[in-house]
Every structure is written in structure tokens, then in C-alpha cells.
């Protein structure tokens, strides 16, 4: 469960960061838009996703696990941007919401 929460949050965070880049904005919206809020939000969410990792595995193991999840969250975002960029508009918020809810309930 913890694994899913950390992964969900870091995936949403990576998706947000990617949407602050013009290349991916073109892919998803067809035009560039102001992405500073997405970039900041993405970085904050990345930092936030460290919290459930540390809660689950302790400080040292938690940081290690978090770094691992970041890798695969970024990989998932990259694959999505390659093969199915448009649905990111709803997959990322949905996954973030589910992750947050699971965290609250845990």
C-alpha cells in the first residue's frame, strides 16, 4: 500500500513537472502555456511524496525507496509522453487524488 501511495504521488509530480515543459505542453494541449505553477507544484509534490516513504520504511531505507520510486515514476511519465500523452490530463490528477486518499486512510 505504501509503495502504491509513494508511486502515485511521485508519478503525478513527475507528470506535472513534464507539463511545465513546452515540448510536452505541445503534445498534450497542442499549444504552449504558462507552466510555472505546474513546475512548482510538481517539485513540491515530489518532496511531499518523501513523507509516506519515510513513514513506511524509516529515514534511511525510506529515502532509498523514494529515490527508486522517482526513477520509475519518471519512466512511467516518459513512456506516457511517448505513447499516450493526451490522457495525462486526467490520469495524473486521478492518480494523485487516489494516492492522497489512500494516504489519509492509511
Amino acid at each position, binding site marked *: 500500500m505504501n509503495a502504491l501511495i509513494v508511486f502515485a504521488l511521485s508519478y503525478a509530480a513527475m507528470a506535472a513537472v513534464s507539463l511545465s515543459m513546452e515540448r510536452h505542453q505541445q503534445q498534450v494541449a497542442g499549444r504552449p502555456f504558462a507552466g510555472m505553477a505546474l513546475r512548482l507544484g510538481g517539485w513540491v509534490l515530489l518532496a511531499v511524496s518523501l513523507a509516506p516513504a519515510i513513514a513506511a520504511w524509516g*529515514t*534511511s531505507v525510506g529515502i532509498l*525507496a523514494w529515490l527508486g*520510486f522517482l*526513477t520509475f515514476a519518471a519512466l512511467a*511519465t516518459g*513512456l506516457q*509522453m*511517448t505513447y499516450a500523452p493526451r490522457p495525462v490530463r486526467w490520469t495524473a490528477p486521478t492518480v494523485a487524488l487516489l494516492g492522497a486518499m489512500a494516504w489519509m486512510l492509511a
Partner: protein
Amino acid sequence: MRPDSKPEGIRQSMSWLHTWTGIVPGWLLYAVFFTGTLSYFLDEVNLWMKPELHASVPAADAARIAAVALAGMGKLAPDANSWTLELPNERQTTVSATWRDRNAPAGRAGTKRAELDAATGEKIDTRETRGGSFLYRFHFELHAMDRTTGRWIVGIATMFMFVAIISGVITHKKIFAEFFTFRPKKGQRSWLDAHNATAVLALPFHIMITFSGLLLLMATLMPWGADAAYDGNAQAYNMERRGMAPGGQGQGQGQGEQRNAGGREGREGGREGRGGRSRDGGGEAVDLAAAIGPMLAQARTEWKNGGSNHEVGRITVNRPNKPGATVELRAHGSDSLTTRGASARLVFDAATGKIKERPPLPTPSAASAFGNVFASAHMGRFAGPTVRWLLFLSGVVGTAMVATGLVLWVVKRAPERRKLGRTPFGHRLVEVTNTGVITGLALATGAYFWLNRLLPVELAERAAWEINGFFLAWLAALVHAALRPARAAWLEQCIAVAVMFVLLPVLNPLTGGHGLDRSIALGQAGIVGFDFAMLAIAALFGWIARHLIRKDRPLAKAAPGAAPAELTEVTP
């Protein structure tokens, strides 16, 4: 290095550095990554390669397993000085027992070991195999050479890797802007994207694994500091580094030391606690099998109150069957990397069943803690399933990074080849070695697993023949790659690997192991995991083969191996 002899920018010179520090030790690094990644599942590989152990199905109740195992030890080694039992867990079906006989020589040589059936306590005889330990050892000290030499070679390659990582980041400064970008079906561009993605996304892992690899080899590569300070006494250095006093008291983590200390306590305890009862009067030998249940329960409660849900992982009995015996229980798993996986311990008086000692966890110095974090992260010892899988998958990404880098070297030189109208020897050499190493090593590993089941159990030097088979298969893959055109060699070897691995879960029940139906039904996670990993490897190589077949059709007329050329910005 520019042909037009203009001055080089930092990125061009870094590009040169990156290319050559990458390709020269690249094949070795690939082998190190490949076998190292498999080693995250060392226990599972060992379990699979000893199918005799599959028959051991532990009961759910740890107290019952421990009681049966202790009774078994009473028959197997009644006169031993100490017994150590590793209880079954999600990675192990049996009770692994080690013991030291009374007059056993010091160190590893004096340790005897056996695997006990978790349900009956009987010793299980297994086939002779090096199992996953061969792959594990190979990944940092190679094979068939002096240990130190092997470690030096791997250490030097690791340093190259470190340089390649740093120069790679500088060369491809665009990688951060293209963090989420992969452009498929674009030849060289795609290979570069794949290489960048695997390198950058897992950059924290790559830096950690390389740096910690160097730290772990530090004693071999740079022994001088410790030699000078400890007068060449490596043992004293190691003991102090682990926070132990040389005498063996203190918060010992080294097993030998720990047993010594325990033995001494035991003797003293026997003299005082028994009120002068003569020792050869037989003492009342404690019925450990009956006493262990309450001890396990106490330990669990104690750890739970301390805030962690650990089960007992290891039982050490000092002076079993003698007066003054002590029982040490150690938790399975730990909560911190800084102590290098040291886990909570409790020492019981066997006669009374009361807790005698609560040895504190070692508190490492800042330098040790730093080293321990990296060492633990590198080896993943004590890592739970989630972290272990993360490390394993990161290892897969790392292996792919090395492989894509090696392939990129060849792909990048395709235009040059076409211009020349022939293949320079060096290019062909790299191309052949790439195939022979990247798919060849997978073939060799597959052969190793097959031989493990096909060689007769009574064959003399069986373990050595499994390993010989590994190297013969690897050599055959290299020869095959040299004899066939590049694309055909890739395709044929990928198909061979896929077939070899997809059939391993079938071979398993035919040769004495538990097939997937039984291992799933019995909840033997280690065996199930191994079989699924083999299917995943088969799927991966099958997918590559399919990709190669599809690509062959439209490109049949183009020069083999020549992807559409697209010069990148980094090409000098």
C-alpha cells in the same frame, strides 16, 4: 581530438572521455551489472538451484518450526559448542543451520552447515552446486583468478564507470531538458534517447551503486591507510570499524566474536548460577524444544513494544545441552541502513527462560554510518520485498543503460561505415563482442540454470561443471556472433534466450522442484518469484526478437545494422 585541430570545448572533450571510458570496460560493466542485478535475488536463486529444498514446507507457527529444528539439531550435532538457526522466511523454505564443534578450528573453516526440513527437522541432502553465489561472486571478483586480481579489475572498471557517469552528465547537458523524451523508431536518435533515459532516470541509483561499489572494494584497492594504522592487521581494523573491541566483548556483530563472547558468558553463568553443581554431573540439559516457544513470544512482544513488527529471524544457542546454555534471538530485518542491517537481539537464559541481556544496537561513528548506508543500499541485505524489487528493477535499468550505450557505439558509426563501403575491423570487433556479451551472457546464465538440473547428481565436481558450462555457453555465443551477420546473430541469440528461459518453469517440476502450481498453492514466494522472473526475461528477449524480425522486412534492402543516420548535437 578534433580532426580539424580546432580547440575543443569542454563538452567535446567530455564526449570523447565518455565514449572511451564507456566502451573499453563496457562489456565487463555489463557483466557486473547483469550478474549483480540477479544477485538481489541470491537466496531465491540458491533455493531454485537446490530443488531438494522445495519439499520443505514450513508450518505457519514459528514456535513449532523452531522446536522441531532444535530437536533435529539435538540429533545432528549434540556436542556442538553452538548452533545457529536461520528460520524460514519469504525467501527461504528451510531452516538453515550452522554449528561449531567443540574443537573446531577458528573462522569459517570450523563452521558446519546443513539445511533442515522446516516441518520435520531432518537434514536435507542437496545436490552439489555453487548456486547463485557463483553469479554473486563473479560480479565483484570474476572467476578463475586470484580474488584480489579479480577485485582490482572490477574496481578499475567501476572507476571508469564513475568517470563515464560524470562525463556523460556534462556531455549530454540536454538530457535534463529532455528528461521525459523518447523518440522511438528513429535509429540512432532512439538509441541515444534510450541510453539517456535509462542513465538519467536512474541517476541516483547509478551514482549510489558505483560509489558504494568502490567503497566496498576500498579495502582491496586502497589498503595502505588501514595497513599503516593497524600495522597490517586487517582483522583488528575490521573489528574496530564495526565498533567491536578486539577482545570480542562489546557489541559484537561478527559472528565468530559473538559466539566467543557468548561462550565465555555461558561458562561463567554455569559456574555461578548452578551453585557449584558439578559439571560432569550431567547438569540438567534444558529441553530447548519446549522452552523456545515462550522465548519467541517474549521477543515478539518486546520488539512490538519497541515499535517494530519484527519476527525472530535467527536463533543462536550457546552451549546447547549443557548447563548455563544461552539462547540468543535476533530479529528478521532492521529499520536503518546506518547500522549495516544490524538487527535487534535478545539473550535468554535457557534454563529459566528469562531475558538475560538486551544487547544494544551498535551506534556507528559518523564515518561508519556513512559507509554503512552505502554498503547496505548496494547489497540490499535486509531489504524488504518492496525495496528489494526497487533495487532489482533499478539494476535492470542500469544493465539496459550499459547495453544501449554499447549498441549506440556501433549505431553511431554506421554512416562512417557506409561511406567507407566496408566494415573496419574495430567496428566489427565491437559489434561481435556486443552480441556475444549482451545476449551471450543471458545465454550463459540460462545454460547454468539448465545444467543445474540436467547434470547427474552424482557427477564428480558437479558444481565446477555447472560453472564450466556457463563459460562454454558464453564462448559459444561469442563464436556464433563472430560467424553470423550482426542482425542474424542478435535475432538467433535472442530467440535462444527466450526459449531457454520460458522453459525453465517447465523444467523445474520435471527435475525435482516444485512447479508453479504447487509453489503457488503452498505459498512458496521464493520459488514463485524465480519462475516469474525467468518468464519476464524470456518475454523481454522475445520482444526484442519480434522487434528485430519486424524491422527486417522494410529494411531488408538497406545495409544490415545501418539505421537511418541522424547526426546528433553531441557528435564532435
